[in-house]
């Protein structure tokens, strides 16, 4: 595998163009914290490292937008925004050395607890510059938060795992960084009570910033975090709602570590982590399914995204466990995230997809990358 370290958009374009002339396969690489996600595929011929494409191109604090290069670490960007009392409302786990980059996060559409109020990466991106397989530099969207000119290719590229082009720059909208945050917590060993508690909060007029669930060893909690001018009053109100659904409640003002656990628990170094997409009314059965397998669950109780971590086991057993969970929760799209390579080789990490959707996805791939050179084989349907 050969490598390029472009320092400019033009150098990135040239690297892709020359690879395409040679028919070489290419993938972009930021910090590598999520490089194992997706299908197991042979290493590509060329790797484009983004570590020198790490500038803040624009930070328009008064307009609350920023243009960020792909190789910039999210943690570094957040430090800069925080100095102005702002944030990019995206808090995925940052991986080793807090290394996760803008390019990697948007390529994988990773997110964290802030998803509840602010949406996912797709909802925060307002524009993007990409380099296509043939070296074409293309921009979509703009630098303003409201804009309907042209197709929303920034959303298409977000979560496309580098299979349509290399993300070079991302334009994001920013939000105020709340000065105060308070968390209400309700705990129980009854999955149904937890589901009721979460729904009581999500259906109330309270406006939570995050609404999460955590479950381990037969017991779990609903965590509702409130931010801003009346964070404390809202957290107290949420605690009363949680108490009414028979949860043991508490309110925490010093809540940073609780939420760090929620973020970082989306990753695992052993066993296998599945990400399930569901609805609020799926919470109890996801927890019950996990409990029977001594699995841990955390995730978004309101938005319905759950990370189930199956305990470490020999590879055949893990493969079987993944199949069993998928069979039991058949209607919930289920992606295998962190898992040993041997396990990922034996299963379809993306899960089954409807045929018409795969057909259309392949057409999109063919039009953006006709020679199939970009990160081949890692994506849904073998794209």
């Amino acid at each position, binding site marked *: 595998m050969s490598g390029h370290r472009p320092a400019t958009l033009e150098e990135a374009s040239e690297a892709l163009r020359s690879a395409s002339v040679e028919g070489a396969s290419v993938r972009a690489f930021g910090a590598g914290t999520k490089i194992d996600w997706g299908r197991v595929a042979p290493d590509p011929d060329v790797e484009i490292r983004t570590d020198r494409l790490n500038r803040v191109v624009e930070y328009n604090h008064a307009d609350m937008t920023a243009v960020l290069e792909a190789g910039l670490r999210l943690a570094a960007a957040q430090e800069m925004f925080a100095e102005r009392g702002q944030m990019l409302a995206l808090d995925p786990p940052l991986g080793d050395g807090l290394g996760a980059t803008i390019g990697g996060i948007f390529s994988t559409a990773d997110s964290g607890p802030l998803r509840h109020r602010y949406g996912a990466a797709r909802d925060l991106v307002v524009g993007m510059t990409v380099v296509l397989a043939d070296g074409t530099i293309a921009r979509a969207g703009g630098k303003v938060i409201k804009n*309907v000119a042209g197709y929303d290719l920034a*959303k298409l590229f977000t979560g496309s795992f580098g299979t349509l082009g290399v993300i070079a720059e991302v334009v994001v909208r920013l939000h105020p960084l*709340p000065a105060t945050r308070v968390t209400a917590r309700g705990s129980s060993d009854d999955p149904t009570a937890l589901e009721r508690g979460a729904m009581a909060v999500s259906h109330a007029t309270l406006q939570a910033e995050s609404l999460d669930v955590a479950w381990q060893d037969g017991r779990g909690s609903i965590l509702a975090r409130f931010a801003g001018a009346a964070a404390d009053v809202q957290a107290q109100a949420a605690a009363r709602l949680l108490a009414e659904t028979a949860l043991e409640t508490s309110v925490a003002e010093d809540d940073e570590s609780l939420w760090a656990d929620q973020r970082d628990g989306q990753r695992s170094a052993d066993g296998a982590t599945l990400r399930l997409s569901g609805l609020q009314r799926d919470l109890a059965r996801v927890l019950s399914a996990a409990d029977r397998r001594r699995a841990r669950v955390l995730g978004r109780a309101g938005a319905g995204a759950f990370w189930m971590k199956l305990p470490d086991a020999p590879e055949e057993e893990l493969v079987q466990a993944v199949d069993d969970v998928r069979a039991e929760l058949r209607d919930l799209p289920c992606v295998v995230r962190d898992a040993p390579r041997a396990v990922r080789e034996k299963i379809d990490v993306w899960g089954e997809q409807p045929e018409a959707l795969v057909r259309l996805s392949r057409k999109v791939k063919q039009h953006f990358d006709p020679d199939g050179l970009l990160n081949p084989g890692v994506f849904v349907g073998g794209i």
Partner: protein
Amino acid sequence: MDLVDELKTICSPERVVTRRHALQTYESDGLLQYRALPRAVALVDSAEEVRRVVRACYEAGVPWVARGSGTGLSGGALPVEEGIVIALSRLRKILEVDLDNQRIVVEPGVTNVDVSAAVGPGHFYPPDPSSQIVCSIGGNIAENSGGAHCFKYGFTTNYVTGLEVVLSDGDVVTLGGKEVDRPGYDLLGAFVGSEGTLGVATKITLRVVPVPEATRTLVAYYQTTDAAGQTVSDIVSEGIVPGAIEMMDNLTIRATDEATHAGYPLDAGAALIVELDGPESECAALFEQVEAICMRNGATGIRVAKDEAERALIWKARKAAFAAMGRISRNYYVQDGVIPRTKLPEVLRRIDDLSREYGMKVANVFHAGDGNLHPLVCYDDAQPGQAEKAEEFAGLIVQACVDAGGSLTGEHGIGVDKKRYMPDMFSEADLATFQRLRCAFDAAQLANPGKVMPTPRLCGEVPGPYRQHPLERAGVAERF
């Protein structure tokens, strides 16, 4: 069989419009400057009829345009001459209300306001274009509609979780679902706002949210739009996210007050409506802060809505802005551009200069939070050449928006009206990249052709059959 005969077989003859005078109802949408007569209009009754009509058009190689309520302001639903219009206004069923999961599933002809009504009183659907009483959800999907509350709540694209779509070859595909963050390309995100050029949505799943506990509304008056603009920047920079912030300039105030008698002072240079919503405790704390910011920026007066009736009156003036303009001008051209909020003074000065140069008045209405400017260029079409001149002037305004780092359109769409300006905002490479998406969805380009893109483009050779991946050859992985 002739295509029109086939449509009659699919839809029954009385639901296929072919008589010239009846077709004229469909020759324009909300943008009346453009007209084209279709060959026929199919008043479809079901998603299955949509699929069969689209398929019949595909077999015949005839272009088609999907149409909801026809309220669009960029000519997005303008028929293709001699093409087919698929009218979706009979598809008005609410298919499922799932409040437990905060979702609603509807047909495309359902109006925007009926979605909120169906999930009320506890929940609502936030995107609220001014035409919400009549505009259809299908049209909202096509245009990625906004409204007054999107600075805080987001746009249509942030609320659509699933779509059943008929592609131009008649294939039916489900994008997304009730759940969010599904694996695969975000084709849902690409489809919303594609102005009917990628296919037609026949079933729509939306996310809805609880109605806020409290709403507090004020309107502050200023001598200048600059002072009102600075107030907006200060509110936002103090970390306050109002449910809505709307600005009107003097000409708009005078026109709307005459129409609504809402009691705005006629000598104010600008009026700023600020609405906070959310939990009572939060609204109360922030509302005082907002009042202080208004005063600090030289507000000459602040009116706080005492009750729902007064709030409605304040909003009545804002919502009547377009219609009221008829009182001060025979005709007006509604423009829709976006600027970075901080560029407001500079862009308004540019509009003033152009106004003097063209000898035409401009009234400015502004979704101030997200920088979406609606200048209304006043003219009199009884005078020859004025309409063309007004359109030229309006074109220079959006170019000024783009030059300031903004966009050609915030919510009305490109349609036919603005496609010629697309090269001001996008390079040739950008436009060619858009076309790649278009070709993946609709290689024959039968879905709403002639919109969005500035010049017609062919899809060229569709790349050959999908090549087998090395993993497949090795038997490591297989396709499904």
